């Protein structure tokens, strides 16, 4: 009996031992086989993903000249746990910072999202190579710091800031919507950098390292089997002619306004100048934020891209559109003549300047007669077949819009505005239905009133005239990594005007520039001896001050290679400033030499910044 009890006790002990080990095996089974979460944690523990940042694609001009390139900078990372106290003053002076800036950077770094004292976090961004070289020599003194090479933009010439736009760090909103981006990535914020972001950015690579508990790298993971190489961004070949762009910006110095030059046959933008501009280098590197603020606060709005965002009344240049519509609608014939005695006197009336009278169609363009176009405009709107003012206006509006007015031309730049072509509904609301007629809106005859266009649309109009009836949507990039861009930018958009009518307009524009002295030609100042320029002046009244000086032209007449529009804000007559600027640009582009140094000096020395709001 006693023996049996004792052997029972041995059994109890054995059962306890077995039971405990069975529980252990069950738990092992659970955490090793059933629950997979530990495997993820293990990977997170051991693997460190280091992003390999690609260099952004270059931007070349139409002749292959590199305008936008990259330069190396260095981001300094720190692993807080490994940082030992160091000489802050030396650290700061090596990096070209103040001690306070370094302290602030430390505080900011530790406030970053996802901060961990064991992880490498960015401490100081975009250290220029010259500072980095000095720092690197002394880096052994500072433990816990790592370096991440990056590239930022570098500009060969200080031009075309609006076109290129700038690159900034990606914001939280974008990170949420676009999974490609991670905190600290760069992204094109404006200009070409933005519209071609996908092509320019390239593809980030990743290197996977194994790290120990102190985040020290212990070697590459699986011999780099899962690593990927950074793919550099694609190079863009721009349609811009760097020399022309540079020259245009020079001509526009100390003036407010815009120049847009287009190759008519292809729609390629040869130059796009918005003045005042800024050196694109200002928005690169460590001082970007400071400089951006300064530019933003400037009263002349240098960041604002006037070429595609400023809305101006087209002024007298718009007369050619009314002439074309009149011809198309059969209310105007080349031989139609109207007398002008200093203005159109019906209704509110429209004044005119002194010129020979009466004039026919071609002469009306040559001398830019306001009276003539008041007749033409009223004849269109009040054409009997239309039945009503509203119908007449609608037909007119449709024709105008076929020139690309009132709609975006869809240039490959962000933030393009579409301009304003008023609608029947607008006037019905403004005046009341039936409360308006062709006389009420007579300003439209000479490109004033409720009409607004961008300089780009103006350039596109003159390109359309050069092409005798069609335009190709203007664009600033012609090839990506050697491959030409999509067919949207090769399609011809025809206007609703028959091509034959354009000849009269071209003749008029030819005479406006090349007419004999005393014939009333408005733009004789723009004439070039061996290139036949066709142009039209404009003097756009506006509520901001003195009239805008407007001119558009194309050349050579026989085989147009360049169509150009020039706006100089609050500068006065079109012939005074805009016409010579256009003429110099055409000469520069077609001849590459300037034969009229006096004219050039006259433009370069002109300071037209203080003319705003003079006329109140």
């Amino acid at each position, binding site marked *: 009996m006693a023996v049996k009890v004792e052997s029972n006790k041995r059994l109890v*002990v054995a059962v306890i031992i077995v039971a405990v080990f069975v529980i*252990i095996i069950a738990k092992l089974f659970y955490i090793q086989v059933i629950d997979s979460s530990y495997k993820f944690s*293990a990977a997170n523990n051991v693997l460190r993903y280091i992003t390999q940042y690609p260099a952004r694609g270059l931007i070349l001009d139409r002749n292959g000249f590199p305008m936008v390139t990259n330069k190396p900078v260095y981001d300094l990372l720190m692993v807080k746990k490994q940082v030992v106290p160091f000489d802050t003053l030396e650290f700061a002076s090596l990096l070209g910072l103040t001690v306070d800036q370094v302290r602030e950077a430390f505080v900011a770094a530790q406030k970053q999202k996802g901060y961990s004292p064991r992880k490498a976090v960015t401490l100081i961004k975009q250290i220029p190579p010259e500072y980095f070289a000095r720092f690197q020599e002394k880096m052994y003194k500072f433990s816990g710091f790592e370096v991440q090479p990056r590239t930022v933009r570098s500009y060969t010439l200080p031009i075309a800031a609006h076109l290129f736009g700038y690159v900034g760090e990606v914001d939280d909103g974008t990170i949420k919507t676009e999974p490609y981006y991670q905190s600290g990535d760069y992204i094109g914020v404006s200009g070409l950098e933005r519209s071609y972001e996908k092509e320019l950015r390239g593809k980030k690579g990743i290197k996977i390292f194994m790290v120990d508990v102190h985040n020290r790298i212990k070697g590459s993971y699986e011999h780099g089997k899962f690593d990927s190489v950074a793919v550099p961004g694609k190079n863009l070949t721009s349609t811009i002619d760097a020399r022309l762009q540079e020259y245009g910006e020079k001509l526009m110095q100390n003036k407010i306004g815009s120049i847009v030059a287009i190759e008519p046959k292809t729609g390629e933008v040869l130059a796009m100048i918005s003045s005042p501009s800024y050196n694109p280098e200002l928005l690169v590197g460590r001082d970007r934020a400071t400089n951006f603020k300064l530019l933003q606060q400037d009263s002349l709005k240098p960041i604002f891209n006037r070429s595609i965002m400023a809305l101006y009344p087209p002024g007298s240049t718009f007369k050619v559109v009314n002439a074309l519509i009149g011809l198309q609608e059969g209310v105007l014939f080349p031989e139609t003549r109207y007398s002008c005695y200093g203005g159109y006197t019906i209704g509110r009336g429209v004044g005119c300047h002194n010129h020979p009278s009466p004039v026919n169609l071609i002469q009306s363009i040559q001398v830019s007669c306001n009276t003539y176009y008041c007749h033409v405009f009223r004849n269109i709107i009040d054409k009997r077949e239309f039945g009503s003012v509203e119908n007449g206006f609608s037909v007119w509006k449709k024709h105008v819009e076929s020139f690309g007015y009132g709609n975006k031309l869809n240039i490959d730049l962000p933030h393009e505005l579409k301009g304003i072509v008023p609608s029947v509904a607008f006037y019905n609301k403004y005046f009341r239905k039936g409360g308006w007629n062709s006389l009420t809106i007579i300003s439209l005859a000479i490109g004033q009133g409720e009409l607004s266009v961008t300089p780009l649309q103006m350039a596109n109009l003159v390109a359309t005239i050069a092409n005798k009836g069609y335009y190709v949507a203007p664009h600033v990039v012609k090839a990506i990594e050697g491959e030409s861009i999509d067919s949207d930018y090769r399609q011809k958009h025809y206007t609703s005007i028959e091509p034959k009518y354009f000849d009269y307009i071209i003749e008029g524009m030819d005479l406006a520039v090349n007419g004999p002295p005393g014939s009333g030609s408005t733009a004789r100042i723009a004439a070039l001896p061996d290139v036949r320029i066709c142009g039209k002046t404009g003097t756009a009244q506006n509520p901001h001050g003195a009239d805008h000086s407007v001119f558009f032209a194309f050349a050579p007449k026989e085989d147009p290679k360049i169509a150009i529009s020039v706006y100089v804000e609050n500068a006065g007559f079109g012939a005074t400033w805009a016409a010579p600027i256009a003429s110099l640009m055409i000469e520069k582009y077609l001849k590459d030499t300037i034969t009229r140094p006096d004219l050039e000096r006259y433009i370069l020395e002109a300071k037209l910044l203080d003319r705003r709001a003079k006329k109140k």
Partner: protein
Amino acid sequence: MQRKSNILRNLDWIAVILYIMLVVMGWLNIYAAVLSDEHRNIFDFSQRYGKQMVWIGFAFLMAFTIVYSNDRIYPAFAYLFYGLIVLALLATLIFGRVVNASKSWIPIGSFGLQPAEFAKVATALALAKLMSGYGFKLSGLWSYVKVGLVLGFPVGIILMQNDTGSALVFGSLILVLYREGLPGWVLAFAAFLVLLFILTLIYNTSTLLIFLFVLTVFLFIFYTRRYKDAFRITLGAGGVSLLIYLVSVLFHLKVSLSVILLVPLVLSVLIGLIYAYANRLKIVYLLALFLLVTVGFSLSTDYVFERVLDVHHQKRINDLLGIENDPLGWGYNVNQSKIAIGSGGFWGKGYLSGTQTKFNFVPEQSTDFIFCTVGEEWGFLGSTVVVILIASFLLRLLKIAERQTEHFARIYGYGVVSILFFHAAINIGMTIGLVPVIGIPLPFFSYGGSSLWAFTIMVFILLKFDAERYGAY
């Protein structure tokens, strides 16, 4: 010569082979845990695997010495060994070196010895000596006091060294007492108190009071089958609680829930005692006592937990029970340990291919957390094999202990099994989050000379007894 060959033949080779397998596996895992690209030579004695090789060599030498020396010295000098080790423990307390907040090391050159490891052997021997003494019977207060004294000295000093883990190991000797006459219900009651301790930390007092009351009523029904009386007392207690509650609401008194429950509980105990006296039911006295003790225990647990235990013990227990979650702080060890073992999967990552252990994510990975390397590199398959090997070894030693004809040898054998069992179960349990973190080594696996030698000596003294038991006749 004859005697020597007998010894080898009589040695329990199953146990010896299991021992060798465990030691070799242990070394392989220490090698895997410490290995880095800089040190590849397995004889590199600057590294732990190199040193462990030396410790293993010494361990084998000790095993040989024990097998070939006289086994009578152990019963004869059991108290002497015990005395010496108590002195060594005291010396450590005074002259020792502090490692991981425990002052449990005696420095010898650049190495150190942990007397606490050897104290386990000596205490097992002393306990065996005491309980195998002529006329000793484990009944009556005096016998328990003697046992308590033998255990008390080393446990007390080790606690003073701040080495709670090692002190707890001596608690496992309750299995020896059980084998030698301690009633089974004491073992069960001890287990119940441990459970209750855990429950108190998880659940609030009120829930536990209700639980204990219901449990007692069920036990009453189980032993007496008096359903009606059980129903009456439950109803009565419930009624009293309700009454107190209603009164407190009526007179806007703030009476805590514990009081609402405690009053009927005490009343029930009183009624129970009268009931037991009237009906001459001895079991009801015991049940009343059970209720009183357990209620008192659970009420005092919070106090004990907060006042008696150190902060790091509290944190470890709370972490285990999921009361506090702090994977980078107190829970870091266990969390990383579970990640390492869990990431091993079914097949494991392959020998020397573990990433967690190799890159030092698991603290103490070659000592207390060596099982992580097993779990990560050898997977569920390998871990199970190791666990089964350890269990087999323990069961084999249990069989050996039981077959001893000599009381001293048998009691000592049970001591060896208890201590090894506690070490293995608690160590593996803590690496997989089954028990709170208690810093004790995994026998034969963990890096360290002291523990390996102590366990080797412990096991081989038993094997020597076993081999000699034929000679006794």
